[in-house]
């Protein structure tokens, strides 16, 4: 790249000799993402280890680490047959599934909020999870199996994708989405989704009804490695594409036209991100039914702590979502042991009050909805 190809270098504002303004105010904020990342990673490792040890069959922390070392060939020692089986066929798939679902939900929440330019957007709130659930229930009711293990995720993806575009088309006007329109669209879509699910349950036989009910409550209790493999690719593809759009999401917060003036192909970005959100939501919903509020709470907390820049927010929300869901699942299966709370119930119990608070805060800032 030669100097001749660069215009405007000597135009007015530049010519005045310049020192970096890089204000003091933003400096403190810049180190926060690193601290948060390290903190969340440490928390994640801790929760995973604790989660692997605690349960009806207790495994000491040292043994968990030893067994893991043994499997990857770094010394350590295998446990007895029962312990090894509990750890590797019950606990670990469940933990991995919790991480996948949490990361998907957190990341999908951050993307939705960025695309809609609205901190209240979240797959469950605006009805995308509901749409994915309709797809999932349909696949159970009609006993579909055209893609084997992948049938349910595929159906959930199609359901989620249709819903994303529906909600988007219905709730936007003039390049922005008003909170009220978004929430009401979500209410309408969720209601319609509920009706469809009810209809499918009506047509289902008893065994299918039981299967649907368990699935809908939102639980990771049935985790197995094949289930992990059924959703892992979807989540990975979604999580891999999302960070490429971080910078463009920052620009989109200026509005659609200004983002285009800064070189963002807004239409294409929107389509890609809708696709990614549907992928992530489908991955989460396919294994665990509707788990709400993770995608709402996690990005919001991170935004308050580290600022709204999406370069941290998008991967950070995936990490935070994984941490929150792994922690929530640990709580769900230990707090009322030997019984197990449905995970979706637990996250909703904690998430709903937060949603209330967020609504009131937004309302105060805007001085009403009308």
């Amino acid at each position, binding site marked *: *790249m030669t100097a*001749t*190809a*660069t*215009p*405007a*270098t*000597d*135009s*007015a*504002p*530049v*010519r*005045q000799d*310049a*020192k*970096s*303004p*890089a*204000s*003091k*105010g*933003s400096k403190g*904020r810049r180190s926060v993402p690193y601290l948060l990342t390290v903190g969340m990673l440490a928390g994640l490792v801790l929760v995973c280890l604790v989660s692997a040890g605690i349960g009806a069959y207790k495994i000491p922390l040292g043994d968990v680490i030893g067994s893991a070392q043994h499997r990857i060939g770094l010394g350590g020692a295998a446990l007895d047959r029962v312990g090894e089986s509990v750890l590797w066929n019950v606990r670990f798939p469940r933990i991995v599934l919790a991480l996948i679902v949490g990361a998907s939900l957190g990341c999908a929440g951050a993307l939705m909020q960025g695309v809609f*330019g*609205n*901190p209240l957007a979240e797959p469950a709130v605006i009805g995308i999870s509901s749409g994915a659930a309709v797809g999932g229930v349909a696949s159970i009711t009609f006993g579909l199996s055209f893609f084997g293990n992948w049938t349910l995720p595929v159906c959930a993806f199609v359901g989620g994708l249709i819903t994303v575009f529906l909600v988007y088309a219905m709730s936007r006007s003039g390049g*922005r989405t008003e909170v009220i329109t978004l929430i009401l669209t979500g209410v309408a879509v969720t209601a319609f989704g509920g009706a469809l699910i009810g209809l499918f349950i009506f047509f289902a036989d008893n065994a299918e009804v039981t299967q649907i009910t368990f699935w809908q409550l939102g639980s990771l209790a049935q985790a197995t490695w094949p289930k992990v493999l059924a959703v892992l690719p979807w989540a990975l593809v979604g999580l891999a*594409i999302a960070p*490429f759009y971080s*910078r463009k999401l*920052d*620009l*989109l*917060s*200026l*509005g659609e*036209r*200004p983002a*285009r*003036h*800064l*070189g*963002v*192909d807004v239409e*294409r*970005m929107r389509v*890609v991100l809708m696709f990614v959100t549907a992928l992530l939501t489908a991955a989460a919903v396919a294994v665990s039914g509707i788990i709400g509020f993770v995608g709402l709470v996690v990005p919001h907390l991170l*935004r308050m702590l580290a*600022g*709204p*820049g999406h370069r941290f927010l998008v991967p950070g929300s995936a990490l935070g979502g994984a941490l929150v869901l792994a922690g929530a699942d640990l709580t769900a299966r230990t707090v009322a042991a030997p019984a197990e709370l449905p995970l979706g119930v637990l996250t909703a119990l904690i998430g709903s009050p937060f949603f209330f608070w967020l609504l009131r805060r937004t309302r105060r800032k805007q001085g009403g909805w009308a």
Partner: protein
Amino acid sequence: MIRSLFAVRHRELPEPVEPGTTLASAEALHIKLGARHVLRGVDIEARAGEVVALVGPNGAGKSTLLAALATDLTPDAGTVRICGRDAGAWSAGELALRRAVLPQAAALSFPFLVEEVVRMGRAPWNGTALADNDDEVIAAAMRATEVTEFAGRPFSALSGGERARVALARVLAQQAPLLLLDEPTAALDLRHQELVLRVCRERAAAGDAVVVVLHDLGLAAAYADRVAVLHDGTIAAEGAPAEVFDGALLSRVYRQPVEVLPHPRTGTLLVFPERG
């Protein structure tokens, strides 16, 4: 999808241009918004090194013309050319290196800091050699618009006039040779109105083309090289302020008796509504 991820690498950087080169032009431009013909056959040019002011009453089509030059709107008839090429022939990334646009209202969905907002103006240069100057360019743009002291504050905590200046700083930081400003002075106090127009003059002196929508005819007379008076979707008059600002013409266009007289000391034209 893959192509969109890596598209950044294949942008054509703008070449430096001689003063007087046409950077943006519209020919026989017709634009319909809904059922209304907002522009009905407009011809206009913006050349490197000059400030063009678009004036006219509300609803005359000023902002629509600016949006068309910004390639936000597709013409129903006629053509818009940017840097010698049809507007549709550029990619979004290439256009962003050639024209910067200041919208009428500055909105922001999330509480970014002022410095982060100005930094967004550098996004088009990401991945080019010029991205190395980002910090200096941002500092200079913030100084030029007097927003340096707000750098560490959230954008949402600023007043309307302060936001408008931050938005302008972002546009300046983009360093595009064509600047399209929609009412940059609307929310500003007297001092900052003058400041903004002086910045426009400086950019023109440095070889950029500046197109600015103004309501204050006095400002247009004092700072613009050329003025285009829009009336009902057509250009009623175009030329140097001294030729165009004529009491009879302005009175007809604005449907309000207007007086134009030279300043007793400087000779710059002053425009007043006739009162009582």
